[in-house]
Structures are given as structure tokens and as C-alpha cells.
């Protein structure tokens, strides 16, 4: 009883840190169908940010990173859809996937309003923050709650990939904004 309420509380705290709507207080642990929808949303959002960066940025490092996000998250998206089909798992939208999408609408509007270096900086700063939030949620909420073993294993694989993206994003951030280099080398 006690430990399960601690779990729910920490789940709520982590989900809250993803910038979810404050009215979602009574968060239930996500089901596998919810997890599917969350991962699909998280992937698609980063693919779309990447596509936008490819149309707007002239910075070689930023463009390279953006192309990688489109390619890598596209590959993950494909494997998630295949796995969902295999497991007969129909993704079910939930507060988490919905608020991820709501937040991305704001970020996209901001990205569209910026140009040049300001765009590059906002894009890469957001990529660092976004991958940090997503990897924290995968480790703290999604993996512990995944019921199906194959889904759990797929999440663990995606986690390794996204942690790689986080590290790469910090390296790119350091080239875009040298004042962030210290933070990039000493995360947290």
C-alpha cells in the first residue's frame, strides 16, 4: 500500500516535470496502451522539430543533429508501430501524451517565430531539455510500469538511443553557445 502510493506520487512528480497540465492531479500509472501513445507522441514531436530545423537553420551542426533526429526517431517510430501491431496493442491517448502535444504546439510556435542564431539556440536548448525530460520519464515512469516484457525491452533500447541523443545535443549546444559548454561537460 505504502510503496504503491510512493510510486504513484513519484510518477505524478515526473509526469509533472514534463510540463503537464496542472489539472492532471490524480494520475494513474500508465497502461501499456498509454505508454504506446506516449512514445509515439514523443517521437513524432521530435521528428517535427527536426524537420522544422532543417527548413530554418543554416548551422551545419544544428542541421546534422536535426537530420539525425528525423532519421533516428523515424526508425524508432517504425519499430514501435511494428511492435504495437505484433502485441495487438492499440495506443490510447492519455493526459501525458496529450500534454506532450499541447506543449509542443507552444514550442513549435516559438521556433517558427525565430531566425538565425536565435533559432539555433532555442532549438538546441529545447532538444537538450526535451531529451532530458523524456529520458527521465522513460526511466522513472514508463519502464517501471510497462507490463509486457517486449515493450519493456523496447523502452530500454529506446532509452539508450535517447540518452545518446541527449549527450550529442549537449555537444552541439556547446558549439552553438559556448557559454553552455561548461554545463554540457558537467551535466546537472
Amino acid at each position, binding site marked *: 500500500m505504502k510503496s504503491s502510493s510512493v510510486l504513484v506520487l513519484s510518477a505524478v512528480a515526473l509526469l509533472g516535470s514534463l510540463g503537464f497540465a496542472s489539472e492532471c492531479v490524480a494520475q494513474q500509472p500508465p497502461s501499456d496502451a498509454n505508454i504506446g501513445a506516449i512514445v509515439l507522441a514523443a517521437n513524432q514531436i521530435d521528428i517535427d522539430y527536426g524537420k522544422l530545423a532543417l527548413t530554418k537553420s543554416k548551422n551545419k551542426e544544428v542541421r546534422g543533429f536535426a537530420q*539525425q533526429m528525423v*532519421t*533516428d526517431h523515424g*526508425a*524508432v517510430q517504425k*519499430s514501435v508501430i511494428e511492435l504495437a501491431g505484433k502485441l495487438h496493442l492499440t495506443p490510447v491517448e492519455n493526459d501525458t501524451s496529450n500534454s506532450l502535444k499541447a506543449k509542443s504546439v507552444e514550442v513549435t510556435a516559438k521556433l517558427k517565430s525565430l531566425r538565425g542564431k536565435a533559432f539555433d539556440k532555442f532549438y538546441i536548448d529545447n532538444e537538450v531539455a526535451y531529451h532530458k525530460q523524456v529520458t527521465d520519464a522513460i526511466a522513472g515512469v514508463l519502464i517501471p510500469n510497462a507490463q509486457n516484457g517486449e515493450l519493456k525491452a523496447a523502452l530500454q*533500447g529506446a532509452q*539508450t*538511443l535517447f*540518452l*545518446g*541523443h541527449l*549527450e*550529442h545535443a549537449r*555537444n552541439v549546444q556547446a558549439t552553438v553557445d559556448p557559454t553552455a559548454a561548461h554545463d554540457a561537460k558537467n551535466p546537472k
Partner: protein
Amino acid sequence: MNAPHSSMRSVASTLVATALLLLVSCSLGTQGPPGGFVLAAVPKGPQTHTIVIRELKFQPAVLTVKVGDTVEWKNDDIVPHTATSTRPKKFDSGILPVGSSWKYVVTKRGTYLYDCTLHPNMKAELIVR
């Protein structure tokens, strides 16, 4: 009465068969000098070693090779990768698309730490002796 004779014959035929087998194995078994047994392995020339990239790992993560050998990185993962030495900076495959491979002939002794620039959490080591 017949017993000693027949056993003699069978011993003889066994000997002949064994000799034949040895001759055959001598001529077929190796490409070595005619009529001679090759007891020691002939020193081999430069070799090619393959490192497979799969599930965000270089496999094997530590590989020891000799100067002159070729190292091939093969990307069997679902996303592109690179094999890029970081300390010391010596080689860089550039982006390896899914299913592609890249060969590098090692020329200098040392221990090379390398990673994937796209996923810097993928780290491995190449030791050249």
C-alpha cells in the same frame, strides 16, 4: 588352422590401409611442401577484423589487432552511426548508414578510444600492437 593365417592377413591389410590413409591425408590435408607434414602454422599476413554495430553497441567493445591489419565496422543497427576515435584523434568513418560498412587499415601502435559522434554514449576501444 586357418586362424593364424587370416589374422596375419588382416593385420597386413590394416597396415596397408593405414599407410594409404596417411598418404592420402598427407597429400590432401595441406597445401604444404610435397611429402612433408606441416606441423607449425604458417605465419599469417595482415588480417581483417570485423566490429559489428548493433543495438547501440560496438561488438566487441575492446579489440586487439596488429599494425597492418584491417578493421571493418559494419552497421547492423536500425539507425546510422559513426566510428570516430577521440583519444587520440586518428580515424573517423563519417556517417555509416544502416547496412553499410567502413574499413580502416591500422598503421600505428597504441590504444585508441573511439565512439559514435551521433550517440556519444557508445564507447569502445581499439588496441593496436
